[in-house]
C-alpha cells in the first residue's frame, strides 16, 4: 500500500538531519546560540511579550552573530528542568529563564550542565554559571501609586496580583506606601489570582475590586483584561509590561513598560568577547529598564508633575519608597525612621505594609 518503508523513511530522515549540519559547517564562525524560557505566551502583550521584544531587539542589534530561540508557556514547576536541559542540548550556550518561578529549576539545571551559562530573571539564588537579573518594577509602582493616591476619590484602591512572591509583595507595598504619601487615608485591596495569565479571572477579579469600592486598580498580571473592565466601569487603571492605552483609552493612566533589549544585548556581547561572568543586577529607571508610558491627557497637571518628580527622584537617588518609618499590617515597625530598606531585604520581602487589605 505504502511505498515508504521504515528503512527508506529512516534514510530520508537521516539525510534531512544531516543537511542543516552541513549548512552550518559552511560558516566560518558559528553564531552564538541562546535560548529563552518564557512563562506565558509571547502573545500575552505583557511579561513574556516584553521579554520577547528584548530578544528580538538583541537579534536585530547583533545580526549574524547570534541566534536565539525561545520556548513559551513553560510551567513554573519541575517540568521546566527538562525544557531547560533540552535547550542546552540543542547547542544554546546562554539560557535566559525569564521568570521568578524558574529559580530552583535553573539552579538545578546549571548544576548538571556546568558548561552552559544561565541568566535567571527576578530570583535570588546564585551559582558560578548562573547570573541573576531583574528590574526594579517597584520603582514604577511607586509612580503608579502616587497617581492612584491622587486620582482616587473613594480612598480605596485595588491591586490585582498573581502570587505572593517577593516581586509582587514589594510591588503591593511600593504602590500602597506611595499612595499613602499623597493621601494618608488610602487602603489597598489586594487580590491574588494564583496565575500570571488568565484573562477571564483577571477580568472577574477587577470587577470584584470595582464592586468593593476601588476606583483605581493596578495589575500585576500579564494581560490587559483588567484594564478593559476599568474602561467599562469608568474607573482608572494602569498598563503592565507594555503601553496598553489602546485597550482602555479613558481608563489607562500610564503603564510600567519593561525594556529588556539593552540588557540582553550587553549579555550576548559579553558572551561573544568571552567576558561573561555571573552578575547580579537590579536595574530601574536610572538604567532604563523601567519606563513609564505617556500619561493619559486627561490626567490633571499636578498629578503629572507629582509622578514626574518621583521618576526624577529615582533617577538621581533622592527618592526611595522604602524609606522608614514603615509598619507592617499588624502595626509592627519594620523600617525605623531615617533608614532605607536594604536590597537584600527588599528582595525577600514577605510582609505587607499597613493599609493593605488581603
Amino acid at each position, binding site marked *: 500500500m505504502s511505498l515508504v518503508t521504515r528503512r527508506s523513511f529512516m534514510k530520508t530522515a537521516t539525510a534531512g538531519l544531516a543537511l542543516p549540519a552541513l549548512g552550518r559547517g559552511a560558516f566560518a564562525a558559528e553564531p552564538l546560540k541562546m535560548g529563552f524560557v518564557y512563562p506565558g505566551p509571547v502573545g500575552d502583550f505583557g511579561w513574556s511579550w516584553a521579554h520577547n521584544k528584548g530578544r528580538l531587539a538583541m537579534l536585530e542589534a547583533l545580526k549574524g552573530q547570534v541566534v536565539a530561540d525561545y520556548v513559551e508557556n513553560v510551567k513554573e514547576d519541575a517540568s521546566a528542568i527538562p525544557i531547560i536541559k533540552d535547550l542546552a542540548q540543542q547547542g544554546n550556550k546562554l539560557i535566559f529563564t525569564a521568570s521568578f518561578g524558574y529559580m530552583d529549576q535553573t539552579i538545578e539545571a546549571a548544576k548538571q550542565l556546568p558548561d552552559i551559562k544561565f541568566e535567571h530573571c527576578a530570583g535570588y539564588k546564585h551559582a558560578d554559571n548562573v547570573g541573576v537579573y531583574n528590574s526594579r518594577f517597584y520603582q514604577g509602582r511607586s509612580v503608579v501609586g502616587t497617581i492612584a493616591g491622587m486620582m482616587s476619590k473613594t480612598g480605596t484602591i485595588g491591586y490585582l496580583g498573581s502570587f505572593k512572591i517577593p516581586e509582587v509583595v514589594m510591588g503591593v507595598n511600593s504602590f500602597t506606601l506611595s499612595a499613602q504619601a499623597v493621601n494618608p487615608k488610602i487602603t489597598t485591596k489586594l487580590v491574588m489570582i494564583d496565575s500570571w495569565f488568565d484573562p477571564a479571572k483577571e*477580568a472577574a477579579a477587577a470587577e470584584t475590586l470595582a464592586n468593593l469600592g476601588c476606583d483605581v486598580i493596578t495589575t500585576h498580571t500579564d494581560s490587559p483584561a483588567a484594564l478593559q473592565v476599568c474602561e467599562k466601569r469608568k474607573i482608572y487603571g494602569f498598563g503592565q509590561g507594555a503601553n496598553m492605552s489602546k485597550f482602555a483609552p479613558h481608563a489607562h493612566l500610564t503603564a510600567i513598560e519593561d525594556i529588556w533589549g539593552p540588557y540582553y544585548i550587553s549579555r550576548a556581547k559579553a558572551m561573544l568577547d568571552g567576558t561573561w561572568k555571573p552578575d547580579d543586577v537590579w536595574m530601574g529607571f536610572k538604567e532604563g529598564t523601567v519606563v513609564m508610558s505617556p500619561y493619559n491627557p486627561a490626567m490633571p497637571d499636578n498629578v503629572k508633575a507629582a509622578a514626574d518628580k518621583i521618576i526624577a527622584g529615582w533617577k538621581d537617588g533622592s527618592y526611595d519608597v522604602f524609606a522608614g518609618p514603615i509598619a507592617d499590617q499588624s502595626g509592627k515597625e519594620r523600617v525605623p525612621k531615617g533608614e532605607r530598606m536594604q536590597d537584600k531585604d527588599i528582595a525577600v520581602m514577605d510582609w505587607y505594609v499597613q493599609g493593605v487589605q488581603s
Partner: protein
Amino acid sequence: MNLAFIIDALVTVVGVTTPILLAATGELIVEKSGVINLGVEGMMLIGAVTGFAVAFNYGDSLGDWAPWVGVIAAGLAAAASSMLFAALVLTLGSNQVATGLALAIFGIGLSSLIGTGYVGMIIQPFNQVFPDSLAGDPFWRVLFAYSPLVYFALIMVFVVGWFLNRTRAGLVLRAVGENDISAHSIGYPVLAIRYAAIAFGGALAGIGGSYFSMVMTPMWAQQMTAGRGWIALALVVFSGWRAGRLLVGAYFFGILMTLELYAKASGFSFVPSQFWAAMPYIMAVAVLAVISARGVVGSEAPACLGRPFMPSS
C-alpha cells in the same frame, strides 16, 4: 452588604459561568451520543480567535451585525475542527481519548497561529442587547445587563434538556449512546447521529470560546481560555450527564470562583488563598465520591461512552 453589592457580584458570577456553561452543554450532547471529546479547550480557542478575527476584519462593513456574524463564524469554525475529530474517531475508529487530546493541542496551536496578527488589537465588546432603561436600571440590570450570549447559553441548556428527555430525536440520541449495536440493528444511523452530536458540541464550544474574545475581554490573547475547556469537561461528569444539574453545577462553579475573589479582596485571610482556588475541584471530587458511592443512581452516564463503534457490515 446591600442589594447593589449582591447584584454586582451576581453580574460577575454570570460572566464567569457563561462560557463554561456553553461548552459543557455542547459536550453533554456529544457524550450522550456515546462519544467523549476531550478537545473542548482547543475548540473554544478556535472559536475565540475566529469570532475575534471576523469582528475585527468586518467590523466596519458589517456594523452592528459584526459580533453576531463573528459568533456564528466562531461556532462554525469550531464545529469544522470537531469534524476532524469525528472523522478520526467515527470513520477510522481511533481512540477517542487520544484523539480528543490531540484536538485540544491542535486547537491551541492553530488558534495561536491564526491569532498572531491580532495580538494587541481591539474590537467593540458584544455587550448588552436590552435598552439602557432596563440594562442600566439599578435592580433589573441583574436580569438585563448581559450579552446575548448569556441568554443564548441559558436557552440552550433548556433546549438540550427538553431535547434529551422530551423528544423522539433525543431518545434516539440517548439510545445510540446507551447501546450502539442495538440502535444500529434496528436501523438508526449511529455514525451519522454521532457526527451531528459532535458538530453540535463543537459549535457550542466555539461560541463559548467567543465569549472570552468578544464579550468578557474584547481582545485576542493566546490561550486566553486558560483551561476553562477542561472545567467544562469536568462539569459534564459533575452533573451526572443531566442538563438540569449541569446548569446548577455551572453556576455553583461560577459562584465558588467569584467567592474566592471576594474573600481575598475582603481580607478573609484566615483561609489560605490556595484553598479557595482549589474549592471547585474539591467540590467536584466530593460530588463524584457521593455519586459513585450511590452506584449508578443519580448519574446518567451513557453506557457506550468512549467505545468506538465499527459496524461489521
